[in-house]
């Protein structure tokens, strides 16, 4: 926004006030995220910049909180760092376990949400789809309904949705259920819940991609002799792939960041990173939390970059790019 040459002095002043305001708001948006990064290297267990840190004294900085992340919960954190130490860390360190759980739950729920969501978006994009608006509203609603309500509902459902021991359903699902045959405190339960929460994002992004999709390409493929399956994988899929991937990323982030449902329906075996953070913040807040937060910020920068690249690629393919 350039200042016009005919602007009056008042307008000039206002223009600079406006730019300053915007700078301050951008600062408000970004500073809280950046400020924790140096603080996570604090040598002291404080949440503020120490004198040493401000004077860039190496004494003021340390990696102790990152080290703490790896060793927290280990049986013998001070043992020499050999293979036994690593296996101890891999199986016992709480943050390492939380990270493993987060990735496992995140990946599986993302796959579930993406497959189901993409299929449904393809159906919803067809002009002849009956009850389109109503179904769309239902499928998006997990994003709108407050998480606490979803979690409350799931808590009741999972503690009552039990399969009796010895039935055929128990033989089939048994390994995925808790010892009492219920969904509560199981990986399956958390994965299903996270998939539900991720589905709206897949639907929205894939539907948005399909808006610009030219259906005559499908008909062209069919007229050239491709069956529906070949048409889908060779024509439709490559064109909507950017939308599908960014939907999947949204679903993954939703799962990776979700804590309310995990608090309500997960057992001690399904501790995820956000749940562990929540415990850490509530109980004994230590700068180790800031180290996790820093790692998560780096992770979100990576995700943001990926989504941005995908978006540009998608726009370029569809000829929308400004160059």
């Amino acid at each position, binding site marked *: *926004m350039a200042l016009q040459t005919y602007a009056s002095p008042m*307008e000039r002043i206002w223009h600079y006030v406006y*730019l300053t305001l*915007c700078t301050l*708001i951008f600062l*408000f*948006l*970004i500073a*809280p*995220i950046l*400020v*924790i990064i140096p*603080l996570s290297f604090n040598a002291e267990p404080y*949440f*503020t910049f120490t004198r040493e840190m401000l004077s860039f004294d190496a004494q003021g900085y340390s990696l102790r909180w990152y080290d703490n992340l790896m060793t927290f919960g280990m049986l013998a954190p001070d043992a020499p760092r050999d293979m036994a130490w690593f296996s101890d860390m891999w199986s016992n360190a709480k943050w390492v376990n939380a990270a493993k759980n987060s990735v496992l739950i995140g990946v599986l729920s993302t796959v579930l949400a993406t497959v*189901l969501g993409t*299929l*449904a978006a393809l*159906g*919803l994009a*067809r*002009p*002849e789809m*009956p009850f389109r608006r109503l179904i769309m*509203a*239902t*499928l998006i*609603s997990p994003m*709108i*309904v*407050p*998480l*606490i*309500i*979803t979690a*409350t*509902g*799931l808590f*009741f*459902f999972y503690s009552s949705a039990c399969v009796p021991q010895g039935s055929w359903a128990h033989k089939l699902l048994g390994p995925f259920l808790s010892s009492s045959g219920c969904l509560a405190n199981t990986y399956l339960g958390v994965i*299903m819940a996270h998939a*539900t929460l991720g*589905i709206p994002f897949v639907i*929205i992004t894939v*539907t*948005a991609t*399909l*808006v610009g999709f030219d*259906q005559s390409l499908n008909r062209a493929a069919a007229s050239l002799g491709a069956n529906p399956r070949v048409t889908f994988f060779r024509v439709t899929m490559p064109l909507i792939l950017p939308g599908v991937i*960014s939907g999947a990323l949204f679903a993954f*982030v939703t799962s*990776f*960041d979700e804590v309310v449902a995990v608090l309500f329906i997960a057992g001690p075996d399904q501790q995820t990173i*956000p749940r562990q953070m929540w415990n850490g913040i509530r109980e004994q807040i230590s700068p180790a939390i*800031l180290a996790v*937060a820093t790692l*998560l910020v780096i992770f*979100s920068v990576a995700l*943001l970059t990926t989504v941005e690249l995908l*978006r540009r690629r998608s726009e370029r393919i569809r000829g929308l790019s400004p160059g």
Partner: protein
Amino acid sequence: MASPLDPHAAVVTEAGGLPPEAPARDAQAARAAGLTTADGKPLKRALARASRRSRRRAFLLVLPLLAFIVITFVIPIGQMLHRSVHNDGFSANMPQIGAWFAQTEPGTAPDEAAFAALAEDLRLAAEERTIGIVGTRINYEMSGTRSLFTSTGRKVRNGLEPPYREALLALDKGWGDPALWTAMRTSSTAYTDSFYLASLDRTRDDQGRITQVNENHRVYIMLFMRTLWLSALVTFTTFLLGFPVAHLLATLPLRRSNLLMILVLLPFWTSLLVRTTSWMVLLQQQGVVNDMLIWLGIISADGRLKMMYNQTGTIIAMTHILLPFMILPLYSVMRTINPAYVRAARSLGATSWTAFRRIYFPQTLPGLGAGALLVFILAVGYYITPALVGGASGQLISNMIAEHMTRTLNWSMAAALAAILLAGVLILYWVYDRLVGIDNLKLG
């Protein structure tokens, strides 16, 4: 997607048996009925079948997800709603006194028959070890009564001698309390509205009339009001902060605005807990903001501001977290506004303020409406941030639901509060869908 330019779709819908409104269409349909396909079937029927098949095929694509959502979302919510009106903790375990309540009018003083039924029920419940459940249920209606049931249960396990009234009153004076009898009458049916009444700070007196609860017990209405008020405030602050930024982003050349957009999208993609933690670090009494204010000389070293564990903390953190949800819809609408309109207004003599107020601002209203509704809907249901930075005065209704779920274990009450919140959110969702259209929701 459905497109009016699609000739194939047009033929299918016209011949597919639409109500005969327009005469022109009627004639067309009649003509179509006369035509036949290569294998001799009437064209109209062949098309109808084809459109039915394609409709079924579209529906089959959606079906797996719909089934999944129904199982993992709709049924659980339905179950929660059921729980908010259904609690048979008393009625299932105390059948005889329940029968007495069913026969008598509300407000009837308990007679000897009532005490006999009560004594028998208490004995049976104590034997079957369900007395705790019964006591808990009554405790929801009248706090402090759970121990009355459990202690009496322990004493009556061997039966009581008639007259039962004197016998029970001898065990505990509390059995003569009319309020207790009202509470038992309320609980004597499996389906009850008492949790909804309690959610609105109402209760039934001993005549069965709905009254307000004691002043010092009124919490829920206050919490609902606070939730609405804080959400509205957060919506307004996100508008104040989001509007100039969205405007700047929309008017800058695309290359530079894309760069600045990262500053909006990075917080959007950063974990909620990370952002809440950052605000805790910043706002602490020994935190960065206080240190900076002291260094700048704005406050003295012993006058550190308390910005966390109160409403201030909740408002600041929620504004930061929800700000991108305001900026993104505003930005996408502002991008489409033609700058020539404002220039035209200026050339016709409008001051820049008038041009903004009468020309520019009205055109941003769709984006503003979308952003404001989205932020408000999200804010009303916030739980994590108020729980961590809110302290006592920054708690919202969600925190009360969680409190009942995890600490007081009054699940019916949690369900009733959740149902009221859900109703509010669904109304807003419906408005959003009408005004913005849910398929126009954009992410990033």
